[in-house]
């Protein structure tokens, strides 16, 4: 059960703190994503975050404070992580209070990031390039985070606050935060900052430049989307290496659930997810996930078993069967044929249909687009 305004009536949650932090580098020791953040401050409180250093916009080499030569993208992602974690520690952990106002947290985080990035740009010793382009930025990175906690006492329903969880998603760029509910499925909590303003399916195809990201040389925004939900559920943050190379948005949900279903414990889930994503992604991939409110891994699996079967049958199976046929045809006959083109056409149509039927629930918690 999920809602965006009123705290919902909830069951008392389980106490299993179930977390997955996944980090895949395309090139060993040169991953431009920073390692994900997973901070737990209680059974239903903490912070998840990911940071995707933008290798295209920030490929220029800069010297790190440790004297290493790395890309601007690499440094930016790590600086964003360091800044967010420090800000969260001051704002929440040291104050021992949940985030009461997500917008205020986002505004103060943006100020902290601006300061930190301007300072780092001053410190780096890069020769100015002759290249002019809005596609190239100094220290560019995305950020997607979701902070979660029990709602403040004044907004709780007496005696029912135990399983209710308030969340705040924060982001700049096209990394995402999601809520995965056993009954209603995967819900995107962030809205991609892309120039095309495309939806999640269009963004799989279009690869649009970003309209907003953290950097040292351009103003940027940290957006916020706040809401509440009843545990048990799963919260996650992921860079586009996790969801941007799959056939449809539903395939990402299925990837999460299929690997969950195949695993016998948390560690195995992490390995299966990593293996599966490594096989499909064309980018660094980072994911931070927290299952909130379950009494153990078995209960988590049980809760999602129906949903897993439904997602496969309704949104995934037919597309995957065509892809299997296409791959077999391509192996036997690398040159394009009429059969291949016909299958590709079928696949295009099925992908579009899958998105049409999946979209309404998936977008239920997405904030409205900015004017």
């Amino acid at each position, binding site marked *: 059960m999920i809602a965006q305004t009123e705290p919902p009536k909830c069951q008392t949650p389980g106490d299993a703190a179930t977390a997955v932090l996944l980090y895949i580098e395309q090139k060993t020791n040169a991953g431009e994503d920073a390692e994900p953040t997973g901070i737990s401050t209680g059974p239903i409180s903490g912070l998840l975050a990911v940071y995707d250093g933008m290798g295209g916009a920030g490929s220029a080499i800069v010297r790190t404070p440790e004297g290493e030569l790395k890309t601007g993208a690499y440094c930016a992602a790590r600086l964003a992580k360091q800044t967010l974690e420090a800000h969260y520690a001051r704002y929440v952990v040291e104050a021992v209070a949940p985030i009461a106002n997500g917008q205020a947290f986002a505004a103060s985080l943006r100020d902290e990031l601006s300061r930190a990035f301007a300072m780092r740009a001053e410190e780096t010793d890069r020769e100015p390039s002759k*290249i002019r382009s809005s596609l190239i930025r100094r220290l560019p990175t995305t950020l997607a985070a979701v902070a979660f906690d029990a709602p403040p006492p004044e907004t709780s329903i007496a005696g029912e606050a135990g399983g209710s969880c308030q969340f705040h998603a924060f982001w700049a760029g096209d990394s995402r935060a999601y809520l995965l509910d056993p009954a209603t499925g995967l819900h995107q909590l962030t809205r991609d900052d*892309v120039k095309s303003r495309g939806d999640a399916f269009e963004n799989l195809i279009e690869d649009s430049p970003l309209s907003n990201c953290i950097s040292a040389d351009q103003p940027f925004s940290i957006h916020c989307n706040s809401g509440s939900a009843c545990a048990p559920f799963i919260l996650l943050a992921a860079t586009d290496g996790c969801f941007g190379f799959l*056939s449809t948005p539903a395939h990402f949900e299925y990837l999460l659930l299929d690997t969950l279903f195949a695993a016998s414990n948390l560690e195995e889930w992490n390995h299966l997810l990593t293996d599966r994503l490594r096989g499909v992604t064309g980018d660094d991939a980072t994911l931070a996930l927290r299952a909130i409110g379950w009494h153990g891994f078995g209960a988590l699996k049980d809760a999602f078993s129906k949903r897993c079967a439904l997602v496969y049958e309704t949104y995934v199976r037919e597309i995957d069967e065509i892809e299997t046929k296409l791959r077999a045809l391509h192996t036997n006959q690398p040159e394009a044929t009429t059969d291949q083109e016909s299958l590709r056409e079928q696949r295009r149509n099925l992908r579009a249909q899958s998105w049409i039927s999946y979209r309404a629930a998936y977008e239920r918690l997405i904030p409205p687009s900015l004017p």
Partner: protein
Amino acid sequence: MEQQGIKYSVDIVLCIDATGSMSPIIDEVKSGALRFYEDLNKQMEEKSKSIDTLRLRVIAFRDYYVEGEEPLRQSAFYTLPQQKDEFSAFVRGIEADGGGDEPENGLEALALAIKSEWAKTGDKRRHVIVMWTDASAHPLEKNSGIKPPTYPQGLPQNFDELTDMWEGQSYINRSSKRLVIYSPDSYAWTDIANNWENVVHYPSKAGKGLSEVDYQEILSAIANSV
């Protein structure tokens, strides 16, 4: 679930100034054109971006307002690697000659490039135009109404119309498009660099003096999602 990654379809149009003033650097530009797609391909492979279809076409331009020469030569799209030899032969056949003094017809070449028959299939598409010139460009409205007989039909009448072609959706996909310009700071290249979306400008005569570091930075901006 099947492990099928998303594949890229990449189209590249190379616009090369083939006027006489380019003689000292035309060989460098031609080898730059021949290596551009290989380097881009390599960059994408390094990032595990899988290319399904790669096509290139070439537009060599001079000056329609100077008589007695072939003012513009363009190829169809070559599919690589199958048609690599044909592509290489076209590029090698470009000679720097004629064109008179600057300006040249770079904007006409750019308009023709934007109007290319871009691929409409592929999971993700990247449409790239690369311009090499050592000169400023004739305004598109020059000699309006009395264009030379060989002047192409259906080109924009002025710079605003050309801008609309780039920024609109009729000719080239907004998300897929990228434009790299190696040109001096002169009309209309500086305006394009400052005002158009998804442009990378290296201000010099047709890329002269381009360092390997800057070249790699340009390739990264084109090859990666940004």
